[in-house]
Each structure stands twice: as structure tokens, then as C-alpha cells.
């Protein structure tokens, strides 16, 4: 789908860094309660035009509620939701300029693929000729031309997902809301569709909001990700920032795999942080971070692929180096994950890329190994 036109360079797109950028969708101190349960807790959030925004979190974190407030299926208990400067309060779903792709697809079972796609256009009283042209365009877009006259129950899961996408795109909405759109697809098809969706979003120049619990999905597609927990946003940042500079242990743990060592900050200045990690029985030297003061409890978080593993101790000065024993090995084909047990009983994971085609790896169970990392490989977290 139009990958050629885009070329190898991805556009530089960062309106969130531009103080003059106009918010497109804005949540202002939004709270949503269902009886005693607070689904959304005083949340503020700005999404920009043409952004591919992901709401990521475990089930029950409020991400779907947030999206349904944009669609109009839920009204905030307090606060405002604005779209393009207009307060959406009291506007029913059928008058809102957003369209949604439902998790269950919600295709009309008594209508053909064509009729499903044309439904929104007919509602908008578009002239018949234009409807036919748009339906044709959508069918081509999702490559379902030969299935136009079929009913949803005569299609495969992947085809149904495409019909749902075509139907939600047919009205060219200002905002497309995607509720776990790829959940029902198998892994191969899901990966394929992820790239197609990003291409589509860039080609059409629409604003996409996707709700997902799959971090890989969010990382692959989104410009920015909001990681949510218990109705609050833990962090909003680009995928790389979320991965490399998580704001909290919750975010660090939710996205990807990570080792977290608890400790006390021994010294902190503008050049580095020194932490005593009693649990690991070692001193950690890390890059400086904001609002870290000497004496406080903190957590050192490091991704397994940034931890080197070796059979001999490193020759340089022994900072950020700890010895242990291989406790377990997870062989995944492309990488191997070593679970190393330290003298204190704590476990640190190290991921090693399998560059060569060896069946027997040099490091194996019960080997005495040394783990090491550079001072800027991990982050110090205070919450």
C-alpha cells in the first residue's frame, strides 16, 4: 500500500515538541466513574493532528473507556473532551466526526461487504454515484474487490478485519479509533497488517488512536504511546523513549523485558549516580538522572540485551561488573536469554544475539560467568 511514495526516509514528525502546535484531541482533567469504580482518574492528554497515538495498558486500565469517550459511547463524569477545539459534551456518537473500528469488528451480519462499507456513506446521504466510487476505492484499498457481495460470515478473520477497516475509513473520518484491531489475527497476519496500517495512516494523513494491550503492536505503529495504569497515564512518549527512558518501574516492566535492582543512592551529581544495590551485592555506576538525591531509595533498571555476559572477568576496572552462575537458558533461535544467579540469590537476565550457527553454545548451565554493562546502559528510577 503506497510504500514507494514514502521512500526510505520517515518524516520528522514531533508536534508534541512544538509549543505552538494546536491540540487536535484534548482531554482536560477527565474523570469517568462507573458506580464506585473510577475508570479514568483526572486525566489530561493532548493528541495532535496526523498523529498515530497508542493507548497501551493491561485490561481494565481505562484505555478503552478513554477511546469510547472520543467516540461518544461514554460521557466523562467530570472534565472535558475536545476535538479540534470543540467540546464534545452532549454530542451523540452519530454526530461525531470520528469513526471506530471495533474489537469484535461489529460487521452487520445481514449486509454484504459492499453494504457494510456503504452504510456510513448512505447515512451521510452521499449521492449514489459517489457512494459506489468510494466503496470501490475502499474495496481496492483493502484488496477485497472479489468479495464485495459476500456476507461477513463467509469471510475469514483477516478478511473481516479488512472489511471493518474499510467501513471505518469510508467516511474519511477526522479521527480513526482502533480498538484492539489486530487482536483476533494470527501473528504473521498481525505483523503484516501493522505495517499496512502505518502506511495507510501516513498516506491518508488521518489521526489514528489505537487501543492495545500488545506492546509490540504499539511500538511498531505509534508515533507516541501513552502507558496507562488504573485510569492514569504513567508515561507519554515515543516508542524509543518509552523503551530506553521509562519513567517508572511500572512502565519499564510493562514494555519489554527488564532487570530491576533495588538500592540506595550513595552519591548523585551532574556527571553520574552511584548506587549501592544490596540485593545484587554490587555497586552500580549509572548516568545522571533528574530528581535523584543521595540517600534515597531508587531502582536501577537495565534491559537484558544491554548486559554483557562473559566466561572471564572483564579486564578493565571492575565497575558495573558482577559474577554469578548460569541458572537457566532460554533459547529463542535469534537470541538466547541467560538467567544468571548472583551470590546474593538475585537473578539478572542477559540476552545474547546468536550470530553464529552453533548448536552448542560456549556458555552453558552452571558456568561461572561475569555480567557487565556500561554506565549509560541502564536508568535510575525513583518510582
Amino acid at each position, binding site marked *: 500500500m503506497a510504500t514507494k511514495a514514502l521512500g526510505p526516509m520517515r518524516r520528522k514528525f514531533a508536534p508534541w515538541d512544538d509549543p505552538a502546535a494546536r491540540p487536535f484531541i484534548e482531554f482536560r482533567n477527565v474523570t469517568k466513574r462507573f458506580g464506585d469504580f473510577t475508570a479514568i482518574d483526572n486525566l489530561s492528554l493532548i493528541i495532535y493532528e496526523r498523529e498515530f497515538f497508542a493507548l497501551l495498558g493491561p485490561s481494565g486500565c481505562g484505555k478503552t473507556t478513554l477511546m469510547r469517550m472520543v467516540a461518544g459511547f461514554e460521557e466523562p463524569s467530570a472534565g472535558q473532551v475536545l476535538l479540534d477545539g470543540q467540546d464534545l459534551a452532549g454530542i451523540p456518537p452519530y454526530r461525531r466526526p470520528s469513526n471506530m473500528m471495533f474489537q469484535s469488528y461489529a460487521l452487520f451480519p445481514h449486509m454484504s461487504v459492499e453494504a457494510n462499507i456503504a452504510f456510513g456513506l448512505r*447515512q451521510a446521504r452521499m449521492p449514489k454515484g459517489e457512494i459506489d466510487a468510494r466503496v470501490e476505492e475502499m474495496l481496492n484499498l483493502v484488496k477485497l474487490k472479489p468479495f464485495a457481495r459476500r456476507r461477513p460470515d463467509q469471510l475469514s478473520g483477516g478478511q473481516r478485519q479488512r472489511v471493518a477497516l474499510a467501513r471505518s475509513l469510508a467516511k474519511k473520518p477526522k479521527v480513526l479509533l482502533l480498538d484492539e484491531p489486530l487482536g483476533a489475527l494470527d501473528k504473521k497476519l498481525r505483523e503484516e497488517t501493522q505495517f499496512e496500517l502505518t502506511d495507510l495512516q501516513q498516506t491518508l494523513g488521518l489521526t489514528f488512536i489505537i487501543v492495545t494491550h500488545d506492546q509490540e503492536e504499539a511500538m511498531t505503529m505509534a508515533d507516541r504511546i501513552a502507558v496507562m495504569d488504573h485510569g492514569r497515564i504513567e508515561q507519554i512518549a515515543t516508542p524509543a523513549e518509552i523503551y530506553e527512558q521509562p519513567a517508572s518501574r511500572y512502565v519499564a516492566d510493562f514494555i519489554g523485558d527488564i532487570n530491576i535492582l533495588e538500592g540506595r543512592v550513595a552519591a548523585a551529581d551532574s556527571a553520574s549516580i552511584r548506587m549501592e544495590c544490596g540485593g545484587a551485592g554490587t555497586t552500580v555506576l549509572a548516568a545522571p538522572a533528574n530528581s535523584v538525591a543521595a540517600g534515597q531509595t531508587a531502582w536501577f533498571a537495565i534491559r537484558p540485551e544491554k548486559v554483557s555476559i562473559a566466561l572471564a572477568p572483564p579486564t578493565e576496572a571492575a565497575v558495573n561488573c558482577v559474577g554469578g552462575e548460569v541458572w537457566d537458558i532460554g533459547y529463542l533461535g535469534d537470541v538466547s536469554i541467560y538467567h544468571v544467579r548472583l551470590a546474593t540469590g538475585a537473578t539478572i537476565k542477559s540476552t545474547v544475539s546468536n550470530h553464529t550457527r552453533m548448536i552448542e553454545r560456549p556458555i552453558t548451565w552452571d558456568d561461572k560467568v561475569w555480567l557487565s554493562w556500561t554506565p549509560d546502559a541502564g536508568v535510575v528510577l525513583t518510582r
Partner: protein
Amino acid sequence: MSGGPDNGAAAPGGRAGRRGARWLVLAIPYLWLLVFFLVPFFIVLKISLSMTALAMPPYVPVFDLAKGIDNVVAGIRQFTTDNYVWLIEDALYVRAYLSSLWIAAVSTFLLLVVGYPIAYGMARAPRRWQAMLVMMVILPFWTSFLIRVYAWIGILKKEGLLNQMLLALGVIDDPLTILNTNTAVYIGIVYSYLPFMVLPLYAALERMDDTLLEAAADLGCPPVQAFWKITFPLSMPGVIAGCFLVFIPVTGEFVIPDLLGGSETLMIGKTLWAEFFANRDWPVSSAVAVVLLVILVVPIVLFQNQEAKRAEREGR
């Protein structure tokens, strides 16, 4: 029964035994239909082809298998279609059939209009109430049908509850004449047959996916339009089932028009009763019954053929 354990190796005859069990399961309902439906039907058909006689039973020929096969063959030779010709020649029967079909059609329509909102409300009610609501629809069955129809006489008669209430409220000055009119028949039918309309409608509406309505709203469809474009078409199987379930028995209804209707109420059930009990003309009343059956079976068969073709076209 030699059903035997499930593992075929241990029981050599197991496979045949299981097949035998399957046949038995299939055979029981068909045997039931044969004994209690097909055999009586053929008896009625036979009587409808006989002639009236002042005898016991009141028709000839009478088959006596004890007198041998010749007696049966001789009897069959005497069969006549006179009774059917009589049904066509006497305008009374044609009018009774047409009137029955008309009353059944109007009743079915009224039941749909009354029953749909009830079923819709039930399906939309909170889940924990639904079982109780279904129970309440079925509850009238716990009392005899006949008693409930008699109760309507007490409500509808000139000095009945309804008139007393309307007079007391000052809505009317003179009591209304409802009992022994077609209006009373319609009231009785709608009341008695409501569960048969509501339950299939409820079943169809209850399993409808609510997100379809959200999807319709999301695509710009206000709730009332969404009802006609999504909910109603999807409840069609329930509508059709409900209509058949009430139309067929109402066409042959006897008790309600007899108790609540008047001289103007012409229904084939009443005619049948009169032929059978008042005239003691078994052959003609049997012919009336056979024709009624044909009238009702033909549309069902046509409908089922249509459905089968549609299913085939959709590749299901």
C-alpha cells in the same frame, strides 16, 4: 440394547450397537409422529371420503379387517369426493375459511405489534432480571387456558370489570358492547397467544450483539433508524417463527371465538364443531379438517423451501 463400551476394539459388536442406538433415537420421535399424527390423519382422511349414514359410527363404509381384505377393497370402491365438492358449493364454508384466515392474519399482526416491544424490553433489561421476565411471560400457562378465557367474559361483558371501571372514571356514559363481537375475539386471541409471539422474538433479540448498534451510531445512524436498519432485520427469524407459531393455531381456533365471539364471528373451528356435534356429519367435518390442514401446510412448505433455497444461495 447392546450399546457396549466406547472402545471398539474391546467390543467387536460395539460399532453396530452404536449404530443401532442412533437408529433407535431417530425412530422414537418418528414412531410417535406415526402413531399419534399420521394414523389419526389417515382415519380422518378416510372418514372425509365416506358417506353420511344414520348408523353407529355415522358413516359408511366401515372397514372391518376381520372380514378380510375383500371388505376393505369393496369399501375403498365406495369412496366419494362429494364432501369436498359440498365444501366448495356451499358459500358458508368458503366464507368461514376466508374469515378464519383474515382473523388469524389480523391477530398475528396485532400480536407482533404488541409482542415486539415486550420482547425488545425484555432483551434490553438488565441481565439479572431477564430470567424473571421470561418467567412472567410463561406464568399464565400455570392456569387453565379455558379459565383464563372465561375470565375475559367477566371483564368484557356489559356489566363487567372494564365497563365498570370506564364508567367510574367517567370515560364513557353508556357501557360498551365488547363481548360477543370480533373485538372480544381479537382481545382474547392477543391475550392467549402473546407468549408464543414474545418468546421467539425475545430469543432472536436477546442474542443480538449490542456493539452492532454502537457501530451503526458510530457511522452516523441515529437510534430510531438503527432499529429499522439493524435490529429489526436481524430479529427477522424470530418474527417469522413467532408469526407461524400464532397464525397456524389461531386459524383453527375454536374456544376463543366460541366463548368471546358472537354470531358475526365466523371461524372454521366453530363450523367444524357445529358440523361434528350439532349436525353429526362426520364425513363433512372431516373434510373441513383435511382442507384446513392443507391450507396451513402449503404455506409452511413453501416457506421452508424458500428458506432452504436462501440458505443454499448463501452457501451455508
